[in-house]
């Protein structure tokens, strides 16, 4: 785990690695997603939820990814802050919009799922609320990064914010849980019982892996693009000075 970032910390090695790793991850993601979607499509309807249970294969992995990407963002920010490493900063910058996208996807599909299941587009359930707050964290990160002109300063300020958010997320999660149990009432949102049947488990796992691979591919592509952009800017500055 430690060896991989150390090996990739060299930008040249990173570029050589990501040149083939990004498309490979992309192909893996496409294959897994096709298999997962096929299995999900052919799975039988749930006896309670009917066909809408298929939203789960899109929704649940997105919700998992929303947290995982924030964790990646936090680790990259820590590395960028401590070692002042350009690649870590680019990785944090590249991860934020992806994480916001996954979180948004989780919120939208959850809302579409909630309408037929709970009869409401939105309920102030503990999980929904903490995912919404997570989305606001992403928005704050992107907004802060975008509104400081000096890129180095913007990167470091955003990294500090990401770490503050990393400390705060568990507290937010706990507080929202506490708040929801305090406001007793409509909180019987247990989906399909405690255990998941195997016909649903396989497509869910495949889709989760597909999301993970897709994130890997997109993240690498975005980091590459960010590095190219910085190189181009540096080259433009050099030629302007000359």
């Amino acid at each position, binding site marked *: 785990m430690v060896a991989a970032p150390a090996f990739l910390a060299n930008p040249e090695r990173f570029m050589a690695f990501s040149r083939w790793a990004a498309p490979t991850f992309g192909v893996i993601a496409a294959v897994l997603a096709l298999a997962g979607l096929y299995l999900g499509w052919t799975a039988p309807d749930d006896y309670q939820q009917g066909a809408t249970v298929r939203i789960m294969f899109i929704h649940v992995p997105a919700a998992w990814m929303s947290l995982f990407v924030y964790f990646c963002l936090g680790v990259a920010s820590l590395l960028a802050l401590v070692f002042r490493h350009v690649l870590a900063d680019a990785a944090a910058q590249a991860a934020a919009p992806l994480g916001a996208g996954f979180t948004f996807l989780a919120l939208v599909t959850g809302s579409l799922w909630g309408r037929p299941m709970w009869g409401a587009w939105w309920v102030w359930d503990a999980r929904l609320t903490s995912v919404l*707050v997570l989305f*606001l*964290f992403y*928005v*704050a990160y992107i*907004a*802060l990064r975008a*509104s*400081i*002109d*000096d890129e180095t*300063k913007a990167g*470091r*300020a955003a990294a*500090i*914010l990401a*770490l*503050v*958010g990393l*400390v*705060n997320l568990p*507290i*937010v999660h*706990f*507080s*929202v849980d*506490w*708040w929801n149990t*305090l406001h007793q009432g409509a909180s019987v949102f247990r989906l399909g019982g405690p255990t998941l049947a195997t016909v649903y488990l396989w497509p869910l796992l495949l889709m989760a892996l597909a999301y993970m691979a897709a994130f890997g591919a997109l993240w690498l592509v975005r980091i590459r693009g960010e590095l190219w952009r910085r190189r181009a800017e540096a080259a433009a500055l050099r030629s302007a000075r000359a």
Partner: protein
Amino acid sequence: MSRLSSLLGRETALAWGRGGGPLVTLGFYAGVATLVPLAVGPESQRLAAVATGLAWVALALASLLSLERLFERDFEDGALDLIVLSPAPLELACAVKCLGQWIATGAPLALAAPVAAIGLGASPNLAPLVFACAVAGGLAFAFVGGIGAALSLGARRGGLLTAVIVLPLFTPPVIFGGGALSAFASGLPWQAGFALLAAYAAAAVALGPLAMAAACRNALS
């Protein structure tokens, strides 16, 4: 020590004396509390059900107002450079700035909060708890808000950006305080919510200055 106490005096005097001081914040607070019945409707039953919650949210919003000038003015006129150069640790200086801010705006708001809650129709029994929550919550709002204010130094649209950064961080204290108040109002044990709010405030006072100092150093580098 005398450096920090004179800094505290300066911060409090600036926050209290310039630009209307606490009057502006109190005026904003009163304005928000006045708009609520206009929007929700004047029936006292409906208002009483949401009174404490609204007084509490308005408090969180009002404590956003003064954040913009917490670091920005010192950053622009160079006073922040002097604070960074002084032998006193920057972390403590940031804590002192937030404390001064809280004395000038948070404490008057804490005094006004019970008045607003009762005016909206909350039971007068709630007044001591509203005050206590506003004191602890105000500290948390000031110190967490200070992080946002320090991070948005040198940014375009600093004030709005500070609000976007800070509002998600305000979720836990708003939940804990609101939970304690609504539990008290319905006769349930409220101590847990208040204890959690106080714990969050203590953590914000202890850890917030670290992030603030890092953000100030970054902005000045």
